């Protein structure tokens, strides 16, 4: 028998938090989804710890270099010339009150200072590269998803092509080919620019695919039809109706892309494509540590742990953000 009045329980989006928000009565100001996500995030202690570490790292990268000594000063009086390693400190690390993480073998440069300055390069490159990926990925993803048809086909195939590109080899080749002074940049500025462009430009398909998929489902929602029936233009629908709904995935995947890019920057620096020595970078420090790891393992451990903590903190924060912003995607 056909039910005359169908009760379709389509309240998939009804959230318990929404009910809670209504209970306290006094707050007539509604809680936005952002505020609700923040409430959830506050309960996730692991993600919060990741977030605190991320903030500390960012502060360290910005203000740290003002506090530590120069990363370029040699302290060869601390080096044992026979073994080419620090004379002092436990396990010959050179750790002392002046050099909290020890000194570099051979030159005696302060490791803490090099880590702090390296953090600056690492975070700068990964943030800028992520920003580039997010901007390109969002614009192309939303365009492909919203307009569909041959536009979608073109952009989707471009994504496939970019993902198939041998990025590492390309980056190495590019640095060899681009001469100093190109694009009005030289030295480290040019190297950082190349890193940002290479990493950012080849990572956009990851975010682009996610945005495209989300847009595909969002454009079928009735609020898009509602906007169109009120006379909204495509630009209004894209930026005022659809984009606000994409902030959550953009934020989450940007946070998860940053650690990937940190690793990538470290790998490129390790291969000698990063900033030019003596400017410190984490990957570059690892390169220097490889030939002498048997006599001074600490020299390899310090930048390795720095990379590990940074990547882990960003990943924990990203996972927490995803859970907070999109509780159904677990």
């Amino acid at each position, binding site marked *: *028998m*056909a*039910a*005359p*009045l*169908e*009760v*379709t329980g*389509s*309240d*998939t*989006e*009804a*959230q318990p938090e*929404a009910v809670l*928000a*209504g209970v306290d009565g006094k707050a*007539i*100001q*509604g*809680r*936005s*989804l952002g505020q609700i996500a923040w409430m959830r995030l506050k309960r996730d202690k692991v993600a919060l710890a990741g977030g605190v570490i991320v903030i500390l790292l960012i502060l360290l990268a910005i203000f740290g270099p003002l506090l530590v000594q120069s990363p370029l000063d040699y302290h060869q009086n601390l080096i044992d010339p026979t073994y080419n390693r620090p004379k002092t400190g436990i396990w010959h690390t050179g750790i002392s009150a002046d050099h909290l993480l020890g000194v570099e073998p051979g030159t005696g440069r302060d490791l803490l200072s090099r880590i702090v300055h390296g953090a600056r390069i690492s975070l700068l490159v990964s943030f800028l590269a992520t920003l580039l990926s997010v901007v390109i990925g969002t614009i192309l993803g939303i365009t492909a998803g919203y307009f569909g048809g041959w536009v979608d086909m073109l952009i989707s195939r471009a994504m496939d092509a970019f993902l198939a590109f041998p990025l590492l080899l390309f980056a190495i080749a590019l640095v060899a080919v681009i001469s100093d002074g190109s694009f009005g940049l030289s030295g480290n500025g040019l190297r950082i620019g190349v890193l940002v462009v290479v990493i950012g430009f080849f990572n956009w398909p990851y975010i682009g695919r996610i945005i495209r998929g989300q847009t595909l489902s969002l454009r079928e*929602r*009735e*609020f898009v*039809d*509602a*906007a*169109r*029936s*009120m*006379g*909204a233009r495509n630009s*209004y629908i894209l930026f005022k*109706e659809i984009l*606000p*709904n994409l*902030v959550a995935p953009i934020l989450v995947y940007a946070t998860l892309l940053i650690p990937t890019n940190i690793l990538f920057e470290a790998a490129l620096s390790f291969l000698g494509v990063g900033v030019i020595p003596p400017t410190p970078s984490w990957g570059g420090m690892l390169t220097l540590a490889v030939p002498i790891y048997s006599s001074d393992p600490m020299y390899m451990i310090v930048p390795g742990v720095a990379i590990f903590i940074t990547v882990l903190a960003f990943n924990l924060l990203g996972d927490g953000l995803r859970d907070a912003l999109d509780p159904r995607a677990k």
Partner: protein
Amino acid sequence: MTSTGGNKTVSTSDTAAAGTAVPGAAETSADAAAARPARDGEMLLEVDNLGKHFPVTAGLLRRQVAAVKAVDGVSFSVRKGETLGLVGESGCGKSTTGRMIMRLLDPSFGKITFEGEDITTMSQGRLRPLRRDLQMIFQDPYSSLNPRKTVGAIVGAPFRLQNIETENGVKKAVQEILELVGLNPEHYNRYPHEFSGGQRQRIGIARTLALKPKLIVADEPVSALDVSVQAQVVNLLEDLQDELDLTYVVIAHDLSVVRHISDRVAVMYLGKIVEIADRNDLYERPMHPYTNALLSAVPVPDPSERGNRQRIRLQGDVPSPLDPPPACRFHTRCWKAQDICKQVEPPLIELSHGHQAACHFPENTTVSATDEVAKAAVAPGAAPAAEADAETGE
């Protein structure tokens, strides 16, 4: 296509039946209907032989191999101030028709005239100012409100999109509309997820009303709501109609809701209108066998009455709109079907005053309909040309 919007007297037995499944609706039905003045106003919307064929493509070159004939030549008109109900099973093309009227979908053929202007192929840019007068209520209140926007932003969007200056600012205007639809104006800064389904639908209605439209296409306005809330929203729509002099095209699969709210009702089957008549006429004297079968499926609330009714059970499923049956589309499931039904398409003709049906063997009519239909069907040009093309063109 002619109809008098008259005959508004509602008998008591009629009201009782109308309110079968909408609790609380029966009480107000008679009042609302009686309060409505007899309307013989001008035509607001005219739909002529409208159709939508969705192409089915295959292969690398995306060659069109077939077409889903979602809507295949429907014609009706709506007068100012009246409510036209559009009923039919899922997939019969009623929502597609509504979306074409709103120009959210481009028609494949046919003509839509709104206030004397042909809007069938009008560009979206030229259509923009017209959209003030032409609004839509959506089916799913959970999907029709952007979760990232406050109620104020949602209901205020039409003002901003149409660049309408309001006397005391947009906020004041929005709060007035919220009050009009029975929401607390204090809810201005709240987000949709903080509201129940019924409240959300009221927000959607508020947004629709913001521009004071003339015609509202309501696509299943209550089907996503709890039964207890359906009556509230239906009654709200009726009150608003009286207050703001609105014209509705209500699309629904729920016969009780349609009976309650409509002045005239059109029944669709597989992309075509099979019967269109004044509400009481249609519900009391259905002519098309399909309408009869639909009406017989409406549940009877009184258990003791249930034994008396005749339930017509249709055999089989609705045929695919990819390859609809030739001639009368209902002949595959019709218990009255004869050879003529498989060969000659019955045109939608007026069999009694204001009552049109497309059937060779209509019921509830004194007119010798077979002759009428046969005459009309044989007469050249009786069936619209485009329709014939659509049948043979594939």
